[in-house]
């Protein structure tokens, strides 16, 4: 494979993955509106297209055509940088996510992963930690008290829960001896659902810590204090309008999808089927390539469904409860999980 071929294939992969991700973001918004509608005993969007399926396109068009207001008194360079940073960080991390069978592709180049990095997990965590700046800077540069309060809350919350999030993943890394997302998935593949890290590796405590920390990381209900409408009107993006607001909005949903991908890879066996070796893999090359992607998409979809379900069900935490919960319950629990996993690994070496 020459460098030009490599470049062209990579470009193709980037374009396709980005388009798919953006479509997924748009339809996650629709999924949320429909589901929350059903939970609250109403229809949700139902007018545009069959079952309201074209609603995301119309929403996108509306955001493009709206007047773009820049309030006076904002610090312009950072005011403009913040949404770009948020959106970029939310979309970049998909680059290391493997979402299909690794051995499929032209001339040994994996088709279903943009780049196979041997520290994939750390790359995702690093990019997430840079994403905090988008929120912090947007609140500060807007020169508005609601924005500032929202972004202060958000930064404090993200720093606190990032710790629990990172620590909850350490158990899986100890079990699988790798930071490479592909290797982590392959370790879980053999017996299907029984060897997924959530069951086979006894990491369900880690999974629930991850779940809660992830909800807080993406500023979602019940931890959506940075943008809680009743107190802060809109939080850090109060002063943003039109496409700039849409970028924050899309960043939030892209983050949800990334978090869902990471949960799928780390705990739910990634692209492998829940039946493992009990059902032999399909002989057909097309089925061999397509089924793993379907399993992956299904798992991420279930995760997103859970997200919306939780949002429609649980009331919002109070701020001191949020901090107490993060520092005094989640973090010690995550550390205990690491200790327990290490002891298990030390006295029952599996491999």
């Amino acid at each position, binding site marked *: 494979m020459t460098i030009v071929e490599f470049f062209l294939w990579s470009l193709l992969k980037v374009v396709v993955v980005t388009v798919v991700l953006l479509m997924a973001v748009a339809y996650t918004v629709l999924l949320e509106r429909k589901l929350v509608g059903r939970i609250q005993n109403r229809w949700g969007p139902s007018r545009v297209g069959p079952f309201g399926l074209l609603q995301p396109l119309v929403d996108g068009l509306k955001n493009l055509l709206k007047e773009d207001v820049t309030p006076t008194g904002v610090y312009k360079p*950072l005011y403009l940088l913040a949404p770009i940073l948020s959106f970029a960080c939310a979309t970049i991390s998909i680059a290391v996510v493997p979402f299909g069978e690794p051995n499929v592709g032209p001339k040994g180049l994996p088709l279903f992963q943009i780049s196979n*990095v*041997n*520290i994939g997990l*750390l*790359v995702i*965590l*690093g990019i*997430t*930690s*840079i994403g*905090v*700046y988008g929120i*912090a*800077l947007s*609140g*500060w540069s807007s020169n508005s008290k609601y924005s*500032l309060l929202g*972004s*202060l809350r958000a*930064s*404090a919350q*993200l*720093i606190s829960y*990032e710790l629990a999030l*990172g620590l909850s993943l350490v158990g899986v890394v100890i079990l699988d001896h790798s*930071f490479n997302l592909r290797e982590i998935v392959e370790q879980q593949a053999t017996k299907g659902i029984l060897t997924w890290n959530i069951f086979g590796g006894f990491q369900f405590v880690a999974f629930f810590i991850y779940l809660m920390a992830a909800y807080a990381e993406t500023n979602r209900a019940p931890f959506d204090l940075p943008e809680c409408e009743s107190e802060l009107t809109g939080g850090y993006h109060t002063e943003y309008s039109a496409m700039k607001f849409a970028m924050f909005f899309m960043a939030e949903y892209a983050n949800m999808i990334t978090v869902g991908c990471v949960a799928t890879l780390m705990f739910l066996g990634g692209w492998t089927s829940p039946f493992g070796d009990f059902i032999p893999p399909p002989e057909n090359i097309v089925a061999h390539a397509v089924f793993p992607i379907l399993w992956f998409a299904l798992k991420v979809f279930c995760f997103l469904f859970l997200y919306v379900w939780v949002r429609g069900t649980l009331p919002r935490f109070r701020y001191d409860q949020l901090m107490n919960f993060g520092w005094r319950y989640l973090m010690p629990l995550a550390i205990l999980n690491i200790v327990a996993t290490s002891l298990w690994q030390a006295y029952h070496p599996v491999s």
Partner: protein
Amino acid sequence: MYLTLFIVFAGLCLAGAVNLLLQRHPINSALSLIVVMTSLAVLYLLLGAEFLAAAQVIVYAGAIMVLFTFVVMLLNAGREERTLGSRAAKAVGFPAVVVMLALIATVIVKATGLHAATLSDGITSTVDLSRVLFRELLLPFEVTSVLVLVAILGAVALARSTEGERTGGK
């Protein structure tokens, strides 16, 4: 390829460092520092130290600098005032810079057998790194953790004493 990347990111690193000094607003300086740290992470990556690069981004650029910007935002620090600088700093500073540069230049000229920079003994993977950290360097590692603990306790003590005064006053 590697050389191009090195030049680009080393340039970015230096530009960020200079910008850090020239900017008047503290938040711009903090952001320049983030640029410096992230480009350093890329330089580590070019040396083949992936774990170190990721740690640099997560710990320095992601956690410590967030706290910096957090504090700048909380204090709502305004623009710095620019002074003309003290006479002593000018009298001592410029010769000191010249001496430093001369020193570095002589070392570079005199030194023979300079090779491309690699990390010592090729310790780059997480496994090697943790083996060194938890076996050969166990004592310094533990002592450092005690040092950090002492610092945390000190911070807690400082924060508590003011609170005690406040509640005592009531």
